[in-house]
């Protein structure tokens, strides 16, 4: 190793631990002195570099961080609150929608009932009086206050696990089936349906729902309005 390289290396790092350098230092007292001198310079520079740190710097650093974290935690609280609120909102809305979707469409159900039952009720030719109808309707706390016209059939039957009144009446064009169903939370009382040659409409009256099922194409609105007008419930 030549002298120049030796000096360069030691200048770059006086505490160099390269074996060649250390060997060269050990051999030559001049190099030893040179190395010592450089180390002394380093020591001096190290001392000179120790600038006095302001006493309050530590406190300032701690304080700023405390303020900062206080601010962020406030912001985070707000964000969390907003998240919770939106979540609650979404849950509420979706639950309502889910519940509505799960409501039993009683208009549909009435058609199914009539279809399944077949001719049993529709072909009945009993002449049921208003008193007889009212006697059955009394269970639900209701009565018809006026004559209903021709009633061919009236019976208590099971409507999706709810006891209800099933009647067959003379409508404007053809026979219509009428169901009086006590209120149930799972029913959708404002529905319309059609199919299997029938159409039906449900409506809400006081404490019960009335579903009118007629043949497809028949006008059942008239009889629906008529029933609504004539039925009364005791309070």
């Amino acid at each position, binding site marked *: 190793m030549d002298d120049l390289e030796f000096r*360069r*290396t030691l*200048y*770059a*790092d*006086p505490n160099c631990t390269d074996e060649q350098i250390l060997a060269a230092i050990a051999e030559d007292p001049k190099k030893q002195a040179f190395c010592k001198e*450089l180390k002394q*310079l*380093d020591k*001096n*520079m*190290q*001392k*000179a*570099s*120790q*600038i*006095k*740190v*302001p006493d309050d*710097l*530590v406190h*300032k*650093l*701690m304080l*700023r*961080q405390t303020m*900062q*974290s206080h601010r962020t*935690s406030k912001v985070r609280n707000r964000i969390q609150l907003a998240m919770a609120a939106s979540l609650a909102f979404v849950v509420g809305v979706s639950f309502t929608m889910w519940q509505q979707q799960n409501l039993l469409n009683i208009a549909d159900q009435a058609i199914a009932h009539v279809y399944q039952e077949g001719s049993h009720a529709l072909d009945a030719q009993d002449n049921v009086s208003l008193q007889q109808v009212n006697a059955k309707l009394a269970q639900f706390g209701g009565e018809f206050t006026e004559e209903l016209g021709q009633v061919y059939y009236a019976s208590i039957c099971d409507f999706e696990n709810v006891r209800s009144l099933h009647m067959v009446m003379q409508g404007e064009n053809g026979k219509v089936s009428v169901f009086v169903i006590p209120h149930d939370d799972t029913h959708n009382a404002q529905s319309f349906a059609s199919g299997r040659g029938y159409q039906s409409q449900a409506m809400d009256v006081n404490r019960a729902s009335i579903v009118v099922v007629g043949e497809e194409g028949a006008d059942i609105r008239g009889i629906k309005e008529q029933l609504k007008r004539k039925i009364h419930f005791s309070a």
Partner: protein
Amino acid sequence: MFSRKQNSQATVSNDMANKQKRYEVLVLALHTDIFRYACWLVKNKTVAEDIVQETFLRAWKSLDSLKDEKAAKSWLITILRRENARRFERKQFDLVDIDDVSVMDDQLSNEVEIEHRELRAIMASLSEEYREPLMLQIVFGYSGDEIAQQLDLNKNTVMTRLFRARNQVKEALDKANDIRGSKNG
């Protein structure tokens, strides 16, 4: 429901307390070195203090990203250097090059201090590319490899700069001694 909420809040504040603790340890252990490094980087105590505050604030915000406590020093230096660079992006303010070290230290009394003062002036007069690696070596005791990594430089470049830095310091010292010598003589 409420007790659950309190529980999670307790964990959150527990995490917070841990983070706080880590931060405090970090500040106590390293603020001196970081401040000195900043001083030598910008050669102005007031500016250095600002930068150090910004550095530690940034460190606090991203404290979770610091996995290895041993790397804390070089992590902070990296943040500090970025903050310093940002300072120039923000505004081009008139930074007076303070070769006069009286600003760096206001209490100089004895002979040793005067000697240090002279050395400080010389160190401050080095250009940044020489001063920075020299300070890393002297203040932090970094090896050539570590300096190269910290400053993102080739090791040979670092060694050359260190050599030139010492060379300049030595020359300046010799010159000052000559002047003093001739004055005294």
